């Protein structure tokens, strides 16, 4: 890794997500690569949900973090391979939990569409989403869709608190 590439990674290491500021773009897996080309540095980012309104802000934040360090680079948005929550770092998941958002608890590995049917989580089962506040697995899904496209709404039946769950994608 060249010094320029290293410097770019260092400049971008702390850039946080505009919607969930406790987690960095690197933790989320949005920041994919920094590479040297004949035309200079290229920073590769990938969108999360197709309609995520934070993407424009993320691109601007990446650009200004690089500019602040005087590093000229182009920011390129790349669709493939499609972003998945499986790329989220363990450190990132822990930060989400501490912030009050249950991180994705299973992989987003593809299942056949025909068999992809509504499955209600069984309270207390190994598959349960764990409450980020009290740690109980006795939780229930209130809605598949929450305050942002990437989250679902849950409720803890033990501490009675509602909480956000970052959906596997």
């Amino acid at each position: 890794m060249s010094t320029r590439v290293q410097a770019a990674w260092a400049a971008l290491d702390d850039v946080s997500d505009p919607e969930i500021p406790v987690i960095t773009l690197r933790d989320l897996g949005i920041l994919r690569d920094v590479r040297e080309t004949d035309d200079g540095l290229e920073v590769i980012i990938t969108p999360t949900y197709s309609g995520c309104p934070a993407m424009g802000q993320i691109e601007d934040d990446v650009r200004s973090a690089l500019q602040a360090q005087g590093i000229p680079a182009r920011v390129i948005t790349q669709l493939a391979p499609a972003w998945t929550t499986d790329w989220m770092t363990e450190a990132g998941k822990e930060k989400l939990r501490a912030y009050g958002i249950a991180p994705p608890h299973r992989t987003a590995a593809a299942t056949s569409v025909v068999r992809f049917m509504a499955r209600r989580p069984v309270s207390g089962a190994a598959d349960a989403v764990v409450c980020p506040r009290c740690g109980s697995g006795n939780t229930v899904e209130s809605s598949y869709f929450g305050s942002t496209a990437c989250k679902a709404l849950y409720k803890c039946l033990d501490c009675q608190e509602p909480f956000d769950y970052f959906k596997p994608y």
Partner: protein
Amino acid sequence: MTSHVDYLLHLADNALVLGQRNAEWCGHGPILEEDIALANVSLDLIGQARMLYQLAAQLKGGAVTEDTLAYFRDVGDFRNYTLLELPHHGSLAANAAADHDYATTIVRNFLYSALMALLWEALQESRDEQLAAIAAKSLKEVRYHLRHSRDWLLRLGDGTEESHARAQAALDHLMPYTQEFWISSQAESAASAAGIGVDLQNLKTDWDRMVDDALLEATLNRSKTDGYVPQGKNGLHSEHLGYLLGEMQSLARAHPNGCW
């Protein structure tokens, strides 16, 4: 090349028109969670439409952008299924401002999501790499749309006498419009021959199975699907699309090149 662009516009127009329709529930949902859910579904659909329009604009070149495609084409240029432009109520209400019926919204979202889950899955193998990338992203999203609409189809169908009757009426109203899925347009035939698109006939067995399984669980009867075959994807639309576009495009046309 033209049929390639037309195929992309068909997919993009589907997503945009249904996204705009579903967004009509924003602030008017039957309960708060559903208001948020429909807004989220719309956000995904409009995001998918943007990626597809950007790709189509790139292929067309010149001064074409995602915005000129979305805001400066007229009814006859749109290639969406007629099913997706219909208002949120049965056929006998006078206009789109009539009372919205959630069963109509749910049944439509279910029929379309079931199709798109299969289509996006197959389009991941498209010879157009950008389209394949869009399909891979959209597939992740449509799975949640399908889960949502299927779950509500069950609740309404296997719910109260009133909700059952309204879900059945919505199904009877909308089912004939799905005939349009299975008759290839010129753009679809050309795209599938070129390995860019998918022949929907190959997906029909799976779609039928998904629909029949859900209807059985929802205690609903599969409606007859005969009569007039809609031609929305060939540019022949119902009267409703003009009103939808009129609302959606008015701001961009009143302030061309406006930025905020």
